[in-house]
């Protein structure tokens, strides 16, 4: 490889099959759009922008989809591309997906997250408020952890800190739920529980937290986990399945202490 950056001038043309649905109660359908000469350096969302610009030019309504940071840190982009949440790339969100992953002449299918707990708002935008509610049920530390000095006086091993950090990288996108045949939110929940369970500051409220968050998850209509592992395979942040084991352990310990 030469010293130059990626300066491909290739472009591709393809068919885009996009799910259109006016609102939660309307019937949805696929619309097919012809996309021409899209440079492969275009990001997937930029490609959607190009489509929308074309639609608006023709006086039509653009495709509604969620997005915000476009750099893989906020979890807003939630497109189901060619049968995979966040598309074919592993360890990446839809906004980090680039058109060079596709070939000239392809048909690319774009759907919203499909899950009972995530109703469609419009087109590809779904309501993920259920995740907020789970977080609100216990995904925080509610007491003063002390000043910087006290915090520095609590020793934390590098392994625990690293593992907690890995769990904390969950961006709450919901791909795990969309990937799961049961529509379970266990990977998300396990990441949110683990990031605290691994640290001394999180221990004080550990029992209350895991019970409250699990109860909320059940109440909101997410399915039960049967350990298929589709969630971890599709998670853009590579959240490990072992978090679910920790979640179960935390829950059993909390229940035993009741």
């Amino acid at each position, binding site marked *: *490889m*030469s*010293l*130059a*950056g*990626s*300066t*491909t*001038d290739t472009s591709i043309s393809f068919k885009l099959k996009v799910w259109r649905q*006016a*609102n939660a109660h309307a019937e949805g359908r696929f619309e097919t759009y012809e996309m021409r000469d899209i440079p492969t*350096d275009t*990001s997937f969302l930029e490609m959607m*922008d190009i489509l*929308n*610009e074309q*639609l*608006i*030019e023709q*006086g*039509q*309504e*653009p495709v*509604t989809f969620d997005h915000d940071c476009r*750099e*893989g840190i906020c979890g807003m982009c939630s497109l189901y591309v060619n049968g995979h949440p966040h598309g074919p*790339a592993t*360890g*990446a969100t839809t906004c*980090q*997906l*680039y058109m*060079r992953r596709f070939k000239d002449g392809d048909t690319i299918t774009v759907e919203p997250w499909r899950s009972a707990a995530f109703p469609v*708002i*419009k087109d590809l*935008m779904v309501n993920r408020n259920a995740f907020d509610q789970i977080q609100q049920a216990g995904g925080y530390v509610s007491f003063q952890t002390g000043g910087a000095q006290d915090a520095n006086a609590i020793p934390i091993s590098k392994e625990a800190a690293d593992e907690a950090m890995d769990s904390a990288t969950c961006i709450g996108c919901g791909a795990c739920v969309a990937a799961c045949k049961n529509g379970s939110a266990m990977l998300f929940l396990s990441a949110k529980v683990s990031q605290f369970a691994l640290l001394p500051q999180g221990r004080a409220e550990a029992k209350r937290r895991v019970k409250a968050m699990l109860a909320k998850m059940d109440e909101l209509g997410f399915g039960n986990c049967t350990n298929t592992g589709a969630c971890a395979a599709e998670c853009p942040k590579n959240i490990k399945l072992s978090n679910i084991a920790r979640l179960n352990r935390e829950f059993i310990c909390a229940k035993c202490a009741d």
Partner: protein
Amino acid sequence: MPRDVASRAAKERCDKGFGVNNTGKAVFLDFSEAINRLGIDVIRQRYGNLFDMYEEITDVNPGELANEINGVKYYNPMMIYPAIHYTMGGIWVDYELQTSIKGLFAIGECNFSDHGANRLGASALMQGLADGYFVLPYTIQNYLSDQISVPRFSTESVEFDEAEKKVQANLDHLMGIQGKRSVDSIHKELGNVMWDYVGMARTKESLETALEKLKALRKEFETNLFIPGTQEGMNIELDKAFRLRDFITMGELIAYDALNRHESCGGHFREEHQTEEGEAKRDDENFFYVACWKYNGYKYKLQT
């Protein structure tokens, strides 16, 4: 090297046509020296996440050996370009973080309070935390303590009706323009005006040009905008239009203020006012104040 100096230098090279990549909008960031000194493992531990993200975006792995010349190893460099990621200054607030609208508080990046003309690395997140953790819990009570005796407002009031009418008129106006331009196309144009004329290096001429362009852009927005769909239900274009209108106002305000400040100071760099080393040259004699602009229906009044 301070990031404003590095950023200006990167943009200057690209503007002069020396940029790399097929867009010409990038300079190389070379990790070779650091990798040769510390080893790839140390560098990957620090920047591995960034390298992976970069590879996903560009298809180039910055940690990969690219060339060896006279025994010196060169690794794939990264293409970088400066981007805005903070707004210096903001909504006026008093010491309690209350805006000029009673009961409306502004905290975090949107207020002007914690930074001067520049901010230090990592202190933007600090500002949000400090405002929310150390200030607001002790000041908002001063406002709330008087509120306990105020009866609940009813939506049956004249003020509510007026506010509702105003919002409705605004919605009707935007939906009714039915022009030719999409929100995004105007937004992009706004971005380019701000980047080219009100950016990291400014001059009197560039700022005057910007103000003219922004005036024309506002007219384009108010008369030639096209929002498809209806007001009812989710309409992302309508949502964006409201924001864009605010962005144009904010762009204008930044340009006015920059034009008015005949000195360089922090993130505000006027090319006419620089030292021989290219550093910001301040004029504390005349500009040692926080400029506060009052909204006056798209005209702005300076209060110091």
